[in-house]
């Protein structure tokens, strides 16, 4: 059932992202998401970026629905149902967390829970997300920007490859654009590094019913959104194609 939650606080994070903090007393584990209802407009999936007693979601402006979320103020209400999805598995592996753009959002609850080094990528400095907060929990936080305006010039995959080659990681946890994740996955496979990656597909029901979020044989909403290496290998469409709202296969 959809619950009406009240926004306590809105925090600007980057050029196109902000964080909505809201009251919601459900237990959430790192990597899970909710469906957010913007009445009269749409209902879209959003990762939970803070899982404490007060929850948060970090929203990148992408279109009408996210635009409407950006327009909300403290005291406003939004509809929320969930949490959904499997979330990340917490294990003892030496971990590199890799976030591309707003892909940092689902990683934040993880970084607050377990130890990891962090690679953050974005197009330019003003789009880098959560660098400062990550430094609060993690000793080693590196960044990359396409335009070199901060950190390494290049993309998050290149940054992660460098860090993997220098460090001694057993695992990569990652979220970001699928093309990035696909190349990161291949880089990990080449190095024998275990992966957990959070993926996205078009979602309608979010409860494993309608099949609109199929990625190969998996339902991203309930079998995912986090997939480990073994399952990533079997995902026929990973890095290649997705389904539109009508269920047609289209390029990524």
């Amino acid at each position, binding site marked *: 059932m*959809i619950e009406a939650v009240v926004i306590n606080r809105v925090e600007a994070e980057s050029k196109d992202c902000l964080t909505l903090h809201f009251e919601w007393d459900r237990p959430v584990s790192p990597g899970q998401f909710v469906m957010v209802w913007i*009445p009269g407009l749409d209902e879209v999936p959003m990762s939970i970026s803070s899982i404490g007693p007060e929850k948060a979601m970090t929203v990148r402006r992408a279109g009408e629905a996210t635009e409407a979320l950006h327009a909300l103020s403290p005291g406003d209400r939004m509809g929320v149902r969930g949490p959904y999805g499997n979330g990340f598995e917490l294990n003892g592996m030496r971990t590199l967390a890799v976030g591309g753009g707003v892909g940092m959002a689902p990683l934040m609850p993880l970084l607050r829970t377990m130890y990891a080094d962090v690679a953050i990528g974005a197009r330019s400095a003003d789009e880098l997300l959560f660098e400062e907060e990550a430094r609060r929990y993690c000793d080693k936080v590196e960044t990359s920007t396409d335009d070199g305006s901060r950190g390494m010039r290049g993309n998050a995959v290149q940054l992660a490859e460098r860090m993997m080659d220098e460090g001694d990681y057993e695992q990569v946890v990652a979220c970001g654009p699928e093309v990035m994740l696909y190349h990161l996955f291949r880089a990990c496979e080449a190095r024998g590094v275990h992966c957990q990656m959070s993926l996205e597909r078009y979602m309608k029901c979010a409860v494993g019913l309608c099949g609109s979020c199929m990625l190969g044989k998996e339902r991203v909403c309930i079998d995912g959104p986090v997939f480990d290496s073994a399952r990533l290998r079997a995902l026929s469409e990973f890095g290649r194609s997705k389904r539109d709202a009508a*269920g*047609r296969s289209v390029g990524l």
Partner: protein
Amino acid sequence: MIDLAVEIGTIRMSNPAMLASGVMDETGEALVRMMEAGAGAVVTKSIGVAAHDGHPNPCLVELPHGYVNAMGLPNPGMDRFAEELRTIMPAPAPVIASVYAADEEGFVAVAAAMEDAGAAGVEMNLSCPHAAGFGMELGTDPARVRSMVEAVASSVSVPVMAKLTPNTADITAIGRAVEDGGGDAVVAINTLRAMCISPEFARPVLSNRYGGLSGPAVRPVGVRAVYDLRRELSIPIVGVGGIETWRDAAEYIMAGASCFQVGSAVGRRGPEVFREITGGLQAFMESHGYAGMKDMEAAVHD
């Protein structure tokens, strides 16, 4: 082990648990996964002539006892979907294509495309409660149902089933129209016309306002529909609505269903639900001395 194999015309199923239309059946790989999970047959998402996005989100409300959905018949259109089907043929279990259209011509066109692509049967969706112009309007008028079924049944060589709406005063009149029109089976029930309103936001939750109720909530309505149909029809009945356990399936079989479909439970219980149901059913039949499903029906009806 009791043999649960069952046939509807030329459709041969290793067990009577079919995947219901609209659930995990928009892609070839989804269909195969449901077969691997133990479905005896799978029914596809309802396919129309042209691609259709369906209704905007929200299109699902979760309730403790079921769902109210208004997906709005999203589908890639018959040509794209035929391609999709071809990728999984020959499939490990029969694929029954659910088809919808606004008129006879449309039904015939989609049914033919699906047969060509390898569908072992056609299920005419005469009953979707939340797509204006399609569905329920057609499905409550016996004369139109009869001529629609006649048209499709005479244009394809695979068995034709028709799915009935429970949103009517007398479902048996529609069932009889299907039988008279040459349909090979009826499927009952589709969802109940329903609505959920959010008090806080003071509006219906679904973008389409109206939706269809499914899940355990509707089971006693579905069982009643099947029982009524069994007493009026001689073609097979496929029972659907709220089946989550072997007990639920047993209720439908005793009410008169030759086989049954599972929809909402795929979300509520997971795809494992197929094996749980068929396994439990076999154990029940063994311990209660039923040699076959027809004996269960006979125990109630004779």
